[in-house]
């Protein structure tokens, strides 16, 4: 294990690829490596990119890679695509849009499948991002699967969250709905060569502009939403409830308890294929990136990330117990009884739940 970590640190590309495969396979070796990686990383900001399927995440990352390379940066990319719920297979089709960087020694792209994880990412995505950090890539970019409104794991994983939208996202009501838009540090409207996109851009500026003003003007109401005393940890970060709601309010609330203010949400319109507007976006990303390197911010993000890992780790154990319970022959009987109305669903769930021990 030590040799492998040293090789990765020294820039051995093949070892980096092999280490990533190791963490992608569940098992004790993967967990041991993951533990070591946690200790050696956490200083490089991770930029997260999320948004609906087909909105242009991969295309944007391709354009950013180009610009970051012009500025002499070495960039790592983790791109996640969904595992088939039917076959356990996957098409990992993000890097196909980044192929012009395939032979660049200062770019490393790794494609991963979710392995049925909900939330937009996979367990291995974090470990691979840490490996990229260890290998000297800075920044590290993470692309989620095409998400809907409620897959927001990226919020606890990345230091900076870019939420991308495109034409056809919906109307003003749609923009107030809970979920995706709440986790953004930057909202990017892509495909601004289309009039629909520009209408959306205008509406977002109105909607999120509203939210910004509301939160700044009513600090007392913000405090009502902060975690209660029993949820708070020693440094005030709070329990899983807070993390699930990484929204504008709790960002500012958390910020207040640390003595810094979360910056206002940036809203940028671009056309990723041609690169129009991407330089403006990159400037804003680099600004946030600089702020994210401050030691207090770094620690804040790291702890949030670790909290997410704890939460998902517990859920994974529960899931494994569930899978075993569902596969047992006794479940077939329970299913039949439920079908016939001999048992209620609550009873069936309770009987299966006996096997549960997180």
């Amino acid at each position: 294990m030590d040799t492998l970590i040293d090789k990765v640190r020294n820039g051995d590309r093949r070892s980096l690829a092999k280490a990533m495969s190791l963490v992608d396979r569940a098992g004790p070796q993967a967990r041991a490596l993951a533990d070591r990686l946690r200790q050696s990383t956490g200083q490089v900001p991770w930029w997260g990119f999320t948004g609906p399927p087909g909105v242009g995440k991969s295309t944007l990352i391709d354009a950013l890679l180009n610009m970051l390379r012009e500025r002499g940066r070495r960039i790592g990319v983790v791109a996640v695509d969904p595992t088939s719920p039917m076959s356990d297979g996957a098409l990992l089709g993000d890097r196909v849009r980044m192929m012009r960087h395939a032979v660049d020694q200062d770019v490393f792209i790794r494609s991963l499948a979710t392995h049925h994880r909900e939330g937009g990412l996979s367990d291995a995505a974090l470990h691979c991002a840490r490996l990229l950090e260890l290998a000297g890539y800075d920044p590290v970019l993470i692309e989620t699967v095409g998400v809907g409104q409620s897959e927001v794991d990226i919020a606890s994983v990345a230091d900076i969250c870019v939420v991308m939208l495109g034409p056809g996202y919906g109307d003003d009501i749609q923009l107030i709905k809970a979920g995706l838009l709440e986790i953004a540090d930057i909202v990017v409207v892509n495909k601004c060569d289309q009039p629909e996109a520009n209408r959306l851009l205008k509406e977002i500026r109105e909607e999120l502009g509203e939210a910004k003003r509301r939160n700044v003007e009513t600090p007392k109401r913000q405090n009502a939403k902060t975690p209660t005393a029993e949820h708070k940890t020693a440094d005030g970060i709070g329990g899983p409830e807070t993390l699930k709601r990484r929204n504008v309010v709790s960002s500012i609330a958390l910020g207040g308890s640390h003595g810094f203010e979360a910056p206002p949400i940036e809203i940028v319109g671009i056309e990723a294929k041609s690169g129009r507007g991407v330089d403006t976006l990159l400037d804003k990303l680099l600004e946030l990136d600089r702020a994210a390197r401050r030691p207090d911010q770094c620690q804040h993000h790291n702890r949030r990330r670790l909290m997410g890992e704890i939460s998902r780790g517990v859920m994974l154990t529960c899931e494994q117990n569930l899978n075993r319970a569902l596969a047992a022959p006794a479940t077939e009987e329970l299913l039949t009884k439920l079908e016939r109305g001999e048992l209620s669903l609550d009873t069936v769930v309770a009987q299966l739940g006996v096997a549960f021990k997180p």
Partner: protein
Amino acid sequence: MSLRGCFAVPGGFDPIRSSGLPLGECWAVRKVKVDVAVNVGSPKRILIGKVGLDGHDRGAKFIVRALRNAGYEVIYTGIRRTPEQIVRTAVDEDVDVIGLSLLSGAHNELFARVAELLKEEGAGNIILFAGGTIPDKDIPHLKSLGFRWVFTPGFALSEILAALEEELAGREEERI
């Protein structure tokens, strides 16, 4: 969430049509036993790509869908790639198999270059196969370069999947 629990029937898999390919047929060749507690085993990774200036990707995309249905993780590198791009991608993504599709006639030169680069990278244990309109008389040469199979028009999908599964099911995880 894996839906497999909802669709699996005793003794097999419901034939669900996915993009025109009977899923049951693709799944039927699977030999890998997955621990029921674990969400997903360690799916093998297969790179499918087209080298050179060939833009006819219907066949490649058909194979990509079939492999996905058969439970593999497929890294599709698209059309008009150089041998260098293919090999670099294969090494960085740590794939188990590379499948190259070519219909333009440049297979002898380009496939040889891919095989050469893989050896230079120390990645000679990646399984190589080819598909496309390749004349029978060229197949022995390609096999001598390291291409395990050359799937010309006429091969049944089930043959292709069975060949891959046979080869991969036997492989042990490479120790690092």
